[in-house]
């Protein structure tokens, strides 16, 4: 008898699960309908019914899952929360990428697949110029801030006590803590007061200022993990200070430096707010250019450039992870 119950049960609960999924999805649609028809009688009635359907459906669904897999209510909520949040994080991104291939010029109606907008992009000279400035600023700010940030990290980690260490440590953290809009306006004021014309150099200066902090934080973490007796061992074996640095310290520190550099490069490519304030005419970066395009209106061309920037960020992230794993 018990075996008969055992064999019947899963099928039974699968049915309940299917039904409750149907209820929840229907209920969500109903709620949407209620929002559209807000204030009208049919809207209110549908809304109330839909709400009931969602609540009861999810309750029954979770009971079924519990019977099928033995997951407790808390664990089920944990799973549900995670899947829904991941969906929430990715739906807009996916929609953006998909719509960059939409043939329609206006609106969200799908009219066919095309690479036209990417083609338009590649012939847009303003975009090309902005791209050039972005990469130029990104390269130089990464180079400078990586060197400076690494040196600062060495000073703070290798010398636990020196005059001015505490204020230096604090100032190094400040750019991470202060809202970027404050940094943007203060830097703008600085350039204006000193009479420095806004150009790609002013962008570079501001980018290095915030990147140093991030590089220093990343490299410091790596340095703190490093075994300092290795340097002693090298000296013991006849390597002088320079060779110790060259053959031991630097190679061991390299993953941290590379991670810091990639982070700096990404931050530089992505920064909008600070660049927006300190960029002059003729020296806009890609995000600033995209911003002004957005202000003019949503176009498939912006979708395409956004999709490309997305791909750029993802490849940089993967590159950074791959380098750190080595």
């Amino acid at each position, binding site marked *: 008898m018990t075996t008969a119950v055992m064999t019947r049960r899963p099928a039974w609960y699968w049915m309940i699960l299917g039904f409750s999924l149907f209820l929840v999805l229907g209920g969500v649609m109903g709620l949407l309908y209620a929002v559209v028809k807000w204030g009208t009688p049919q809207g209110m009635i549908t809304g109330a019914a839909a709400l009931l359907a969602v609540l009861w459906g999810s309750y029954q669904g979770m009971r079924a899952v519990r019977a099928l897999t033995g997951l407790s209510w808390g664990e089920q909520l944990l799973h549900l929360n995670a899947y829904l949040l991941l969906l929430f994080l990715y739906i807009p991104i996916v929609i953006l990428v998909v719509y960059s291939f939409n043939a329609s010029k206006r609106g969200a109606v799908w009219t066919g697949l095309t690479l036209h907008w990417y083609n338009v992009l590649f012939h847009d000279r303003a975009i090309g110029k902005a791209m050039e400035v972005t990469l130029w600023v990104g390269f130089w700010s990464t180079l400078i801030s990586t060197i400076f940030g690494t040196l600062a990290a060495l000073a703070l980690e290798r010398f636990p006590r020196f005059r001015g260490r505490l204020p230096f440590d604090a100032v190094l953290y400040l750019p991470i803590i202060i809202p970027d809009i404050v940094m943007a306006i203060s830097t703008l004021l600085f350039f204006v007061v000193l009479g420095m014309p806004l150009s790609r150099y002013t962008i570079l200066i501001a980018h290095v200022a915030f990147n140093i902090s991030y590089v220093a934080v990343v490299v410091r973490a790596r340095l703190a993990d490093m075994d300092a007796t290795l340097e*002693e*061992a*090298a*000296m*013991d*074996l*006849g*390597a*002088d200070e320079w060779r110790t640095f060259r053959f031991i310290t630097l190679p061991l520190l390299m993953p941290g430096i590379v991670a810091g550099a990639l982070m700096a490069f990404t931050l530089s490519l992505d920064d909008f707010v600070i660049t927006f304030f300190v960029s002059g005419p003729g020296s806009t970066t890609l995000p600033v250019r995209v911003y002004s395009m957005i202000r003019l209106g949503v176009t498939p061309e912006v979708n395409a450039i956004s999709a490309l920037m997305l791909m750029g960020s993802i490849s940089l992230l993967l590159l950074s992870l791959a380098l750190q794993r080595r």
Partner: protein
Amino acid sequence: MTYAVELIDVVKEFPPGEKGKAKGVVAVDHVTLRIRDGEFFSLLGPSGCGKTTTLRLIAGFETPTEGVIRIHGRDMTGIPPYRRPVNTVFQNYALFPHMTVFENVAFGLRMSGLPKKEIAQRVEEALAMVQLSGMEHRKPRQLSGGQQQRVALARALVNRPEVLLLDEPLGALDLKLRKAMQLELKSLQQRVGITFVYVTHDQEEALTMSDRIAVMNEGKVLQVGTPVEIYEQPANRFVADFIGETNFVTAPLAALEGNLGLIRIGDRQILRGAVVDEGLQPGTEVTLAIRPEKISLLAEPRDGAIPVVVRNVVYVGNDTRYEVELDSGIRLFVREQNVHRADIRRFTAGQHAWIWWPPENARILVQ
């Protein structure tokens, strides 16, 4: 005569704030050591006694606050570690994780600018010496603890240093491996003929391997001598206590009989022992030190024997430990070897017995 390593009146003081203490710390306190050429010399002491700091002073990682360090007669003041004719085997081995075994061992030779061919040959020899041939292309983390230890040894020895410094190199190994490595290290040292300066807190290790031992505590050298001297004739209470097991009886010195001293406990019991310090006056507070295995436990009284009551009997395999109580309430440990089966429990708790030792086996030490 020139020594391999000479430390003359060396002081190392860490300024306040360092070592996590508000007051300054004197890690090495007026230490004078003369280490002979080709010797296996151990620095023995509890943790924090300054033995590692002494080693680091010789290696050049620390600069002495006062005093002179000479290696083969050459003054090492102001000479950085990379220009000293010494190499170190570190406690945690400090193998370079980003280099292979070959590159690790070759590092020192590369730094001294030898031709590639000779480097390869010498690395091969060194690895063969520590039985690691064929492991050249592994990374340190792919090796076991014992293998890493051998790589560290090969990396130091391949440079043919005048002195090899070893900072508790066997500390991270398990007991069995440690025993095997002790013998191996000793025979290796005899083969290569290099002076070894060996830091350890393990007295047994020091006694097994060393030609001479320096016992250190609180930054001071308490005694320097061969293992036999250190064990049989400890110069003071700390050494006697730290090396092996010792009974201590503290009382005023009653009388002197040649080089023997008498101390009186209670009214009639007299203990005898050899006097270490010359010119000791009767009446000074002294400590008599006697090792448990040097005491004979007798069933019958004899001349000079002291009556006791057996309080505790513990069987520990190759010998039996007795705790005996004198009339005055002082308790001593006695160790009897279990040669015959009948020896195992010659006495039982509560039994009356006598203890006796040849007076020269006990030592009378100044407080």
